C-alpha cells in the first residue's frame, strides 16, 4: 500500500522532477526560466507528434529539439539582449500555447488533442523485482522514470564536482568576477538555459507519450511553474528538487484517492498542487537562498 502510493507519487512527480532539474541548471547559471511551462507544452505536443509518426524514441528527440529551440530563443533574448528574463519567459509560454494549437490543427485537424500514441515498453529493475513489497516501485516502469532518477545524482555530480559545474555556479553567483577570471559568462549561461530546455522537453514528452498516451491541450497544467517552486523549495540543488518533486507527486496522487472517495468537491482537490506551491514558496516550511546573481542580466561595461 505504502509502496503503491509512493510509486504513484513517482509517476506524478516525474515531470516536475525533470523540469525542476532543468531549472537548477538554468538558475545556477543565473538565468530565471519561467518559460519552462512553454517548453513543457512544446515537449508534450512534439513528443506526441514524433511518437505518432515514428515511435517513442523519435518522440523524445522531437520534443527535446522543439523545447531546446525555445530555450535558445530565451537565451538569445535574456542573455544576449539582456531583456527582463521574466518577460521573455512569459512571452515564450504564450508563444508555445499558440504554436501547439496551430500545429495541432495543421497536423491532426484538432486544436486540443492528438491521436493515441504508443509509449516505451515498460521495464522492470532486474534483481529488485523479486522482492514482493518493492514490486510496485520497481516493475512496469517507464524508462524515463529510471532516467529521471539517475539524472539526480548525475546532476549533483556535474554541478558540485566538475569544472563545468564550478564555472556554471561562478557565473550565477558573481558573473563579473567570473568574467575577470576569463570565463565565458554568456556561453555558460547559454549552456545552463539549453540544458533546462532538454530536460523540460523530456518532462513534457513524458506527460504525453508515457503518462497519458496522447497529447491533450493544457496537459502541463502549470507543472512548469510548479517545477520552479520545487527547485526553490529544494534550495537550487538537484537532490532537494527531487524531494520537492516527490512531495508534489505525492500530493497529486493522494488527491486522486480523495476524489474517488467523493467527500470534497473535486474542484477543491484540483487546487491542492497550486495551494501547496503557495505554502511552499511562502517559506512556511523552510527558508532558502537563491544564487546571488540569479535573474540579473550580465552587462559588460559598454565602451
Amino acid at each position, binding site marked *: 500500500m505504502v509502496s503503491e502510493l509512493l510509486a504513484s507519487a513517482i509517476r506524478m512527480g516525474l515531470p516536475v522532477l525533470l523540469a525542476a532539474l532543468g531549472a537548477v541548471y538554468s538558475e545556477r547559471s543565473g538565468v530565471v526560466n519561467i518559460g519552462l511551462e512553454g517548453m513543457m507544452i512544446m515537449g508534450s505536443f512534439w513528443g506526441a507528434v514524433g511518437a505518432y509518426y515514428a515511435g517513442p524514441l523519435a518522440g523524445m528527440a522531437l520534443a527535446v529539439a522543439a523545447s531546446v529551440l525555445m530555450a535558445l530563443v530565451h537565451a538569445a533574448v535574456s542573455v544576449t539582449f539582456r531583456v527582463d528574463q521574466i518577460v521573455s519567459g512569459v512571452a515564450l509560454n*504564450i508563444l508555445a500555447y*499558440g504554436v501547439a494549437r496551430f500545429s495541432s490543427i495543421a497536423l491532426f485537424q484538432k486544436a486540443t488533442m492528438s491521436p493515441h500514441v504508443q509509449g516505451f515498453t515498460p521495464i522492470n529493475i532486474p534483481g529488485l523485482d523479486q522482492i514482493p513489497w518493492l514490486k510496485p516501485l520497481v516493475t512496469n516502469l517507464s524508462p524515463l522514470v529510471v532516467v529521471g532518477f539517475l539524472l539526480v545524482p548525475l546532476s549533483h555530480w556535474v554541478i558540485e564536482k566538475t569544472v563545468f559545474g564550478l564555472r556554471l555556479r561562478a557565473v550565477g553567483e558573481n558573473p563579473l568576477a567570473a568574467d575577470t577570471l576569463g570565463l565565458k559568462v554568456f556561453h555558460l549561461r547559454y549552456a545552463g538555459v539549453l540544458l533546462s530546455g532538454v530536460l523540460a522537453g523530456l518532462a513534457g514528452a513524458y506527460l504525453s507519450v508515457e503518462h497519458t498516451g496522447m497529447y491533450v491541450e493544457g496537459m502541463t497544467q502549470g507543472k512548469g511553474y510548479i517545477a520552479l517552486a520545487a527547485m526553490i523549495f529544494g534550495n537550487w540543488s538537484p537532490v532537494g528538487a527531487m524531494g520537492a518533486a516527490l512531495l508534489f507527486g505525492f500530493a497529486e496522487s493522494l488527491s486522486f484517492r480523495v476524489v474517488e472517495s467523493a467527500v470534497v468537491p473535486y474542484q477543491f482537490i484540483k487546487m491542492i498542487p497550486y495551494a501547496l506551491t503557495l505554502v511552499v514558496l511562502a517559506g512556511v516550511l523552510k527558508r532558502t537562498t537563491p544564487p546571488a546573481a540569479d535573474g540579473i542580466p550580465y552587462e559588460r561595461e559598454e565602451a
Partner: protein
Amino acid sequence: MRKRYRYVALELASPLVAIAFAVLVGAVVIAAIGKDPVEVYRIMFTFAFRRLDSVGIMLFGATPLIFSGLAVAISFRAGLFNIGVEGQYLIGTFLAALAGFALKGLPSFVHLPLVIAVAALGGALWSLLPVYLKVRRGVHEVISTIMLNYIAFSLIHYLIADVFMDRQQGLMPGVGNPLIRTPKIAPSALMPRMHGFLALFGVDLPRHVYLNWFFPLGLLLAVAVHYLIWRTAFGYELRAVGHNPAAAEAAGIDPAAVQIRAFLLSGLIAGVTGLSDLLSYFGYMDLDFPKGYGFTGIAVALMGKNNPLGIVLAALLFGFLNRGAEGVQTFAGVPMDTVVILQGVMILSIVVASAVMGRYIRRQERKEALGASW
C-alpha cells in the same frame, strides 16, 4: 533640443519594428501550411475594415484589453509583474454576476455602479495574497499569481456548476441540456450599448454588435491612469520604486507600501476587465466565459510600453488582429491561433527592440554629454 525629438522617434520605432517582425514570422507560418501570406493578410484587412459592424466588433473586442493592459502596466510601473489579471478578472466577473442576479429591484443608476464596484473589489481581493507574499515573504509574484489563476479557475468552476447554477432555465422537460451558467443578471445591472448615442451622429450599428459604454469608460480610465502616473505624488513614488527601489527608499519612499497600493490598484482595474462581455453580450456567467484577457493584457501593456495612450493603441491593434483572424479562419482556412503566435513574437521582438534602442540612445546621450563638456 532637436536631437531629443530623434530619440522620441527612436522610442516609437520599436513597436513598429516589433509589428513588422511579427508580420514576417506570421508570413512564414502561413506559408508553412501552404497558404499565400499576402492573400491571407489582404483578407484580414478587408474583412476587418470593409464594414461598419466589423469595426464596431473590433472596438468591442479591444474593450477588455484596455482594462487588462492598464492593470498589467500599473504593476509594471511599480516593478511588479501581475500575471494574475487572468484570475482577478474571473473572480471580479463572477462577483459582479452574483451582485447582478442576486440583487433585484434596484434602480439602474445604483445597481450598475454597484456591480462595477463589486467586480473591482473582487479583482483587488484576488491580488491581495500575492502582494502580501511578495512584500512580507519574498515570494515572486509571477509564480504566486499564476498559482492563484489556477485556483480561481477551479473555484469559479465550482461556484458556477455546483453552487449558483441556474436550474430554472425554462427548457421543456427532456429537451436539450441546460447550460451550466449562473442565473441571468437583472436588466438594471446591464450596461447600455452605444447604438443610440452613435445614431445621433448618423452611425447606425447593427444589432449584433455589442459595443457598449465600457469602451469610452476604458478610454477615460486610460486618461486617469496617465494622470495618476505622471501628475500625482503617488505616481511619482510608483515610478521611483519601479525604477530603483533602493534609491526610492533612500529618498524616503517606503517601497513596500507603494508596491502594495500599486498592486491592489492593478487588481481593482483587472477586476473590471470581463464586465464589457458580462454586462452586454452574455448577461450571465457560464463555464465558457472568455479566458485569456489577462495574458493578452501582458502583450498589450508591453506593446504600449506601459504608457496609457500606447495601451489603447495596442488594445485596438489586438482587437483588429482577433477580428481579422476570424475572417482569415473562415475565408482562408488559416487557424485563428496564428494570432496567439503573433502575440508571442510581438512581445519578444518589442522587448528586444526596446532594449537595443534604449542602449543606443544612452550611448548617444553619453557621447553628447562628453562632447558638451569639451
